[in-house]
């Protein structure tokens, strides 16, 4: 059995688990929840073996030490590792808090990432390491970055749930914030899906697809008419989310998840993620840059965005200490923090230029 079969199995398991978790959220059947957990765990085990197998395959091809053969060297591998961390963190939370209802928020993130891998058709081949990546710091830097990203993803989903449950009125800033965030998230994904379906055949690689064809099928369409219609549909969709967001609130508040628990999980995952990100993402990254490029800090877009992300979470930690900021405002900062994470991780590679080579292959 090779690693890609196991990766396929874990993908199927996570998508299945997503459906089950959502069904569990909707119908509150305990058995459904248990099956969802079991399937998630099975997917996790399959993925763990898949990563180890790929590590072994890479080691055999790569002609270098076992530590340098860690499969974390391109966009595909790092996304897989991100999903692995995310599911691990989620399972820990599920067992610690004995509550599986927000599996319905975490498994969709995992499934979306896996779908993104599949749709974008990015290279899943094992590639040998370019010279800049041949460093033992790669292992700790990338691994710790992704562990912290996964923890931030958890705080994002609990923060969002907190806002959903806690908001009362449609004209409340926090309510507008979360409906807008969720709406834009879905619209961007849908628009990218359309780009993919429209241009896939004429474009050779995902890099080109995203760099030159992003939103060309919709908002940036050559036909002005289609662009205008796209904006209209997006606006209508945003309105619908705003108008019927309370439905989601009913579903979630029907659950035995107190807002304190949500706030607690949000804080705890950031309190874990922040030091890990500081050490692994910023400090080890700086040490590595120092060895590879002779500059521990060069303000390249990836570094700067890591710093921006760091500031967002420092802001979060400090805003909890400010009078009148507890609760919804703090949760909004947590949600925005993860937007910064996504941009640091994907946006910088795909939209900006710089020294970091992920996604450049």
């Amino acid at each position, binding site marked *: 059995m090779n690693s890609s079969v196991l990766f396929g199995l874990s993908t199927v398991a996570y998508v299945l688990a997503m459906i089950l978790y959502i069904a569990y959220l909707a119908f509150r059947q305990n058995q459904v929840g248990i099956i969802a957990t079991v399937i998630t765990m099975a997917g996790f085990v399959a993925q763990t073996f898949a990563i180890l197998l790929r590590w072994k395959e890479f080691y055999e091809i790569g*002609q270098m030490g076992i530590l340098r053969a860690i499969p974390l060297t391109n966009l595909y591998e790092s996304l897989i590792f991100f999903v692995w961390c995310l599911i691990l963190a989620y399972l820990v939370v599920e067992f610690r808090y004995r509550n599986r209802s927000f599996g319905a928020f975490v498994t969709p993130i995992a499934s979306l990432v896996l779908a993104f891998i599949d749709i974008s058709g990015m290279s899943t081949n094992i*590639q*040998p*390491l*370019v*010279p*800049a990546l*041949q*460093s033992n710091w790669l292992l700790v830097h990338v691994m710790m970055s992704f562990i912290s990203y996964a923890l931030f993803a958890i705080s994002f989903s609990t923060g969002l749930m907190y806002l959903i449950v806690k908001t009362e009125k449609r004209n409340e800033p926090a309510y507008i914030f979360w409906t807008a965030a969720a709406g834009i998230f879905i619209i961007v994904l849908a628009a990218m899906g359309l780009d993919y379906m429209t241009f896939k055949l004429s474009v050779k690689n995902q890099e080109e697809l995203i760099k030159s064809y992003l939103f060309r099928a919709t908002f940036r369409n050559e036909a002005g008419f289609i662009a205008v219609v796209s904006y209209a549909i997006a606006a209508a969709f945003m309105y619908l989310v705003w108008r019927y967001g309370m439905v989601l609130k009913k579903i979630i508040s029907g659950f035995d998840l107190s807002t304190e628990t949500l706030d*607690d999980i949000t804080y705890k995952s950031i*309190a*874990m993620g*922040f*030091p890990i990100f*500081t*050490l692994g993402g910023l*400090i080890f990254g*700086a*040490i*590595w840059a*120092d*060895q*590879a*490029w*002779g*500059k*521990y*800090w060069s*303000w390249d*877009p990836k570094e*700067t*965005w890591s*710093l*921006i992300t760091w*500031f*967002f979470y*420092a*802001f979060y930690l*400090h*805003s909890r*200490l*400010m009078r009148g900021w507890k609760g919804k405002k703090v949760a909004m900062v947590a949600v925005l923090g993860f937007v*910064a994470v996504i941009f640091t991780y994907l946006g*910088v590679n795909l939209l*900006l*230029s710089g020294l970091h080579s992920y996604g450049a292959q």
Partner: protein
Amino acid sequence: METGKQKTFVDKIWDVFASVKLAAVIFAVIACTSMVGTVLEQNAEPAKNIRILVKFFGESAAPAAYEFFSRLGFLDMYHSWWFLFLLFLFCSNLIVCSIDRLPRIWKLVTAPIHPLTPDHLDKMSIKRTLTLKGKGGAADLVAASLKAIGFKPAEAEVDKDRQFYAEKGNYTRLGVYITHLSILVIIAGAIAGVFFGFNAFLNLPEGQTSSVAHKEGGKEIPLGFEIRCDNFDVEYYGESDMPKAYKSWLTVLRNGQVVMQKAIVVNDPLTYEGITFYQSSFGTVPDSAAHGIAILRAVSRDGRSEEIHARVGDTFSIPGAGIQGRIVNFSPALSVDQNGRPFTYDENMINPALFIEFTGPGQRFSGWIFKRLDRTWQLPDGNRVEFLNFWGVRYTGMQVRKDPGVWIVYLGCIIMAIGLYITFFMSHRRIWVNVSEEKGQSKIFIAASAHRNRAAFERTIEKLVGMLVAGHKGGTK
């Protein structure tokens, strides 16, 4: 700050700088301006940024937008006066805020824990009561159990009850300050680097020596010694053009004397007297093929070998074989097209090859030999010509840096790691256990607090309760 008295202007300024609100504002401003700085390419030629701005503002408004951002210093924003000013505000905020709060925190850290009255204990965030039947022994059990969970309890009498109290980790309250201090240390290190160090580059052709490096803009920086590039080479993965390693063989010279030699690769630089040379790029010296020296090893059928240095056009002989080779042509990157015709596909030396004509008594043959394909080294008559290098045509591009501040930065990083660990994973824990004996049973009241991670401390308290209950049962049996 004192209240009641009229606040002076200085007090007001101090208050502003002592507030976490200002910190939040500065975080937001630095984050937002930095975002702009990542969209506009820093220190790039104008055309590039205008192209980026066209995407946001359209053809007509882009030049004006460019002018606007350029005036505001956004095209080299991390060195602009206002960004440095923001960093300065940030540091002042951090320092003032810490000084403002330190006395209070210091008191909490150093003041020893007291016994407390029941009223006070009632206000603690963690509380447990339990009753142990049977007379005596409870106090000893409490003391022993507190020791078992890692506390060293003191004992006092409060309202005729016995009270055990203890605390742990009072210094962990300083974790936040250690974290903040580390930020200042890192910034200090960065400033030291700017003032006492330099960042330069050096393109050094094979075989040449330099005693200076060049700063951006062309200014020369004397190194204080000489550096020579003995050789540069690229290793590839198998027969592909995927680079595996860039390697420069360097020699450091002092007054003509060799003092150090090292082969550097990406991620493994050479450092001499505080100046570090990093492998960063490479290239080909213009019109170089004519000066390049092919380094070959000729190995005859009977195993005699000889190293040969020859230029294009030169003739050499294979030892003892009575056969002569003449180098006719050189290609830095040779490939073969569909019709079998060789052609050069790159200016850089990716796949160097030599065309050699061999003539000997009664034989004459010719062909391309490739540096990277050793199967092309074998000649039809059983002799061999190994293509080792084509030397003297490439330069190694090195980042040259001196940064006496880097150790301060690393020290700051270590302090930050320690500070963050203390801040997030440790806490100041205090516990009071009141033991009152009445009517043949012991009433035990536990009150405790932790300034962080309360849930974890609560689990410890549960353990304590479990030990008391179990210990008591064991004692009465």
